[in-house]
């Protein structure tokens, strides 16, 4: 079975935006891989004008939140870095050897969420040579507004990227396990780029 890989478009985010952006992306992917019976939940982002969907599984939600917390802690120790979060789906295969049985994970899909977490001071350092004596707070507010709008557009692009990938590639998805809501998955934070 082929392992399909999807590299999502890189997003430039500030620290306080990480949680919402990651929730949105990870839950959207998971919703498309939770093929058991689900009762979907609509979630409106607070920072952006976007609504995404959760599959409603409490355990999955908890798992995603834990990984986001872990990532945020890592970011605090490694500021201003580009990073990747990998969401992988796998099947458990039982390998029979002559002396022992070994369960092996066979990955059939991997999603790479690419984030560039920037520090807010990077924006305030911009100088507008053509505008002498401009209130830095007002300039900073406008810059943040423009940046936020651009991020919203980019985030929406990422969500459409997920939907297109899910639509175009279906053959590699394993048969649905009726006993589980979602395919087994893991979230890892590999070394930063």
């Amino acid at each position, binding site marked *: 079975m082929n392992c399909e890989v999807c590299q999502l478009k890189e997003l430039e985010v500030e620290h306080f935006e990480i949680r919402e952006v990651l929730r949105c992306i990870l839950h*959207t992917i998971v*919703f*498309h891989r939770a*093929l*058991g*019976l*689900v*009762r*979907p*939940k*609509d979630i*409106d982002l607070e920072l952006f*004008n*976007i*609504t*995404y*969907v959760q599959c*409603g*599984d409490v355990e999955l939600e908890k798992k995603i939140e834990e990984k986001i917390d872990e990532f945020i802690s890592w970011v605090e120790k490694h500021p201003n870095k580009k990073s990747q979060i990998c969401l992988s789906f796998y099947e458990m295969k039982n390998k029979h050897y002559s002396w022992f049985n070994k369960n092996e994970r066979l990955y059939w899909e991997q999603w790479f969420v690419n984030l560039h977490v920037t520090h807010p001071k990077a924006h305030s350092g911009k100088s507008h040579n053509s505008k002498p004596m401009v209130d830095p707070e007002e300039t900073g507010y406008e810059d943040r*507004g423009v940046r936020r*709008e651009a991020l*919203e*557009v980019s985030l*929406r692009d990422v*969500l*459409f990227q997920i*939907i297109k990938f*899910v*639509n*175009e590639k*279906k053959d590699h*998805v394993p*048969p*649905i396990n*009726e006993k589980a*809501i979602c395919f087994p998955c893991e979230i890892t934070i590999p070394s930063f780029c």
Partner: protein
Amino acid sequence: MASPHNNTNTESAEMEQIITEFFPKSLQIIHESRSPFMSSRDYSGEQMVSSSPSSSSSSVWPRDEWFNLALRECPAAHENLDLWHQSYFEPMIVDVILVAAPPVRWEPERDFSTTEQYPFHWNSDQEESGSEGKIEKIVERWVLQYEGRKARDSGAGSRRFSNTLQTFYKKSILLMRSLYATVRLLPAYKIFRDLNSSGRIRSYTLTHKVSSFLEPFTCKEEAEMQRFEFTPVDSSCGRLCLSVLYCSSLLFVSPESSTRMFPQYIDDYVGSPLAEPLKRFSSPTVVQGSLLSSPFSRRHSWVYDHGKASPPSFSFSPSPNHLEKHGSISNPSSCRFQPSSLPPHLPDLPPVLKKNKSFDECYPSPNFTPSPSP
């Protein structure tokens, strides 16, 4: 022990059932996210683990659990759908329509304290009388279709057909997941959220129309729209197709985003001795037609800022990222559709359009009460 022939017949019937259920399920997903006050938003119950619809032994599957997507029953979305149950070769066209009231006429007795919050007057009398002067604009057109094709070699054996059934259903589930997520990402969803978020009377609303007859857009309307096509899901005898044409940018006025209108003393109102009998009154321009006009509004990612105040009508402009042209509704009559030959961008639809056999128009309102399901 069941013969392979009987198994094939059973699986064939199940596949047909999946195809049949594709239409009402898709309609429900679209309807719930486009019809205010009918949404199942925030309806999250306990996870239900019931017998799998994909099990071949299951013959009675609750409607709302089809495609493993448990949605609240929506009788309004299922009205007049029996037609498709009988003939799923008919395409289903779902038009999502933005309806706006015409500009308000100023009256001196008017209560300006409410006017400044409601720049448009949504006159219920006008609604009952047939919406004279209302502006309607199709903001989305969903096309659902099952394309049949020549039957493949059926002598391959029942086992291969079983795999096909399971795979077909799995891919249909994926399609439904994508549809559910996509309807929430398109521009019209913002309007739906605004309408649903508060009980205030708005000057605009969303309706939808379901039919099997496609009324083509004008060239101008088509230029304003973007197309998103879901990858078809193949079965042994055909494929499920789903696509949407949508306005990539919607400029509209909502109370939160419009410029506040302050009370003005109008001394030349209609009937005033100061007014000239034949004087033309210009459209009120105090209302900004852009979501960008107010610093308190959240900018929509599809909004194209013309940088000028627009009259209180609906202007649909494409995002600069997608289209070079942009259009506006300068004449409400441009919203009237002129049936003609199929537009070239929809080659998948049948070349001959039949008269629509089922025409369902829903005008949801705060007082709308769905009829109980049979």
